[in-house]
């Protein structure tokens, strides 16, 4: 251990650690607590306190918050209760998602229920469709004129 790290620890300055799984930083050691920051893979933080399944950490910007231990885990396994037979290995992405809350990946798994996948495909057409860019500025101006003057740009109501 480097002398400066030892000094930091002796002074109660915490232990540096590198994030292995992207995670959110929370205001309390609770899954649904308010999010105060984000951690990406490879980012360094200072571990201030170990609290069961959580760490209290200090970020580079001096922000203090709570991070699940999964952020620093090397490998993960999926609990057998979720699968028939042997539990397959979960990817690091899955591990990361577990601490990110609702996400694209969680939604993708959610629509595995019967009927939902087709419904989401119909919805996706709206997400990517004509509305995707919001209200066109020219049209917005035209409609505002129509509301106030009773005529569209071309003069036709």
């Amino acid at each position, binding site marked *: 251990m480097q002398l400066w790290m030892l000094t930091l620890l002796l002074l109660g300055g915490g232990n540096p650690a590198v994030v292995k799984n992207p995670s959110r930083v929370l205001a309390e050691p609770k899954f649904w607590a308010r999010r105060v920051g984000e951690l990406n893979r490879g980012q360094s933080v200072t571990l201030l306190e170990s609290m069961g399944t959580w760490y209290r950490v200090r970020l580079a910007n001096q922000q203090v918050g709570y991070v699940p231990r999964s952020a620093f885990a090397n490998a993960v396994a999926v609990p057998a209760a979720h699968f028939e037979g042997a539990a397959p290995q979960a990817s690091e992405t899955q591990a990361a998602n577990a601490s990110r809350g609702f996400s694209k990946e969680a939604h993708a798994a959610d629509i595995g229920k019967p009927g939902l996948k087709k419904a989401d495909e119909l919805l996706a057409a709206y997400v990517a469709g004509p509305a995707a860019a*919001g209200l066109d500025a020219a049209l917005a101006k035209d409609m505002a004129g129509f509301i106030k003057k009773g005529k569209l740009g071309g003069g036709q109501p």
Partner: protein
Amino acid sequence: MRRALLLAALVSAGCAQLQMKNPFDQAQKSIAAATGNKECTRAELEKYAYSPDDEYWFGRSVADRLIAGFTQQNPDAVYPPDSPAAVYVNEVGQLAAEAAERNRDDGGGPSGAARRFPGWARVDDMPDRPPPEFGYRFILVRNPAPGAWGLPGGFIILTDSLVARAGSEDQLAGILAHEVAHVQRGHGIEVIKKVMCAQEDSAVKEVAKQAGDTAASVKIVDLGPVVESLNKFADRLSDALTDKGYGINYEYEADAYGTRYLATEGYSAAGIADFLHRVDADPAFSTAMSKSHPPAHLRAEAIEKQVAAEKLEPARSPHERERVSRFVKAMIAGGIRPDWSPKTDPATAPLVPPAKTASAN
């Protein structure tokens, strides 16, 4: 149980009529019922925080469920987004969304900031939600039951039979502004926070446990609990919305804010009230809304008092007749026949005679 809820809703609505100065004072009966009557403090509720990303994916999961319900009845229920009716509804809806943004108030409650519009009553002293991460989507579906849902993340679903009951573009804009107000005021998120706080049951605790649990021997961290949680709460909100809606007071609040959005765009501030007068005697509308909304005439009265008190645009704003005409043309182009049949009170009859519309179809 349902009868009790309906009774509670009617009692609450009745109180709103008697104490119109602040219709939001009544308790949130339907939410209280959904949460086992446990009421959490604001501090407790704020432990359950949702980012715009959480909100988007959560709202999308709820929207999936509602759409799946419609397509079960009719596989072709969803209008293609580039169909004329869907495009028109989207244009008017995006204007309502733009108006909502112009009226954004990020102050109050836990924000610690001053309210931008301190005179506008709120059910919960909460800032407006951040704008939907990927904008608003107005999804039009074919269904004989009139209905509309403003979901977290900016997903707004409405049936063509509801659109057909509007009498003008101003009234359609009113319907859409009301739904946008549900989103901007965060009603869906508030309901979920209240349910989660009151029923922090074993599944939620399991999520919390597993998310934090990386004991050296078995590192139990996976997507399963998060998906279960998303699944469960999306089920719960979609069920609650189709059964009880957001609750009486949130409906009044959405009317009040939607009316302000309408006035901002230059539409008649009475757009929502005019629509409610039109459908007050409509049995299909009453049946669809009775479990989730206050009676239409009470809502209309509350809006009319608000329009007078806030000195908003008069009930009949200039050029409304042209907007009625444009609405009818858009409906015909979109294959939706305006439903202006029987039940309308002659005093609030549409500006364009129904007979003319019928012949145009």
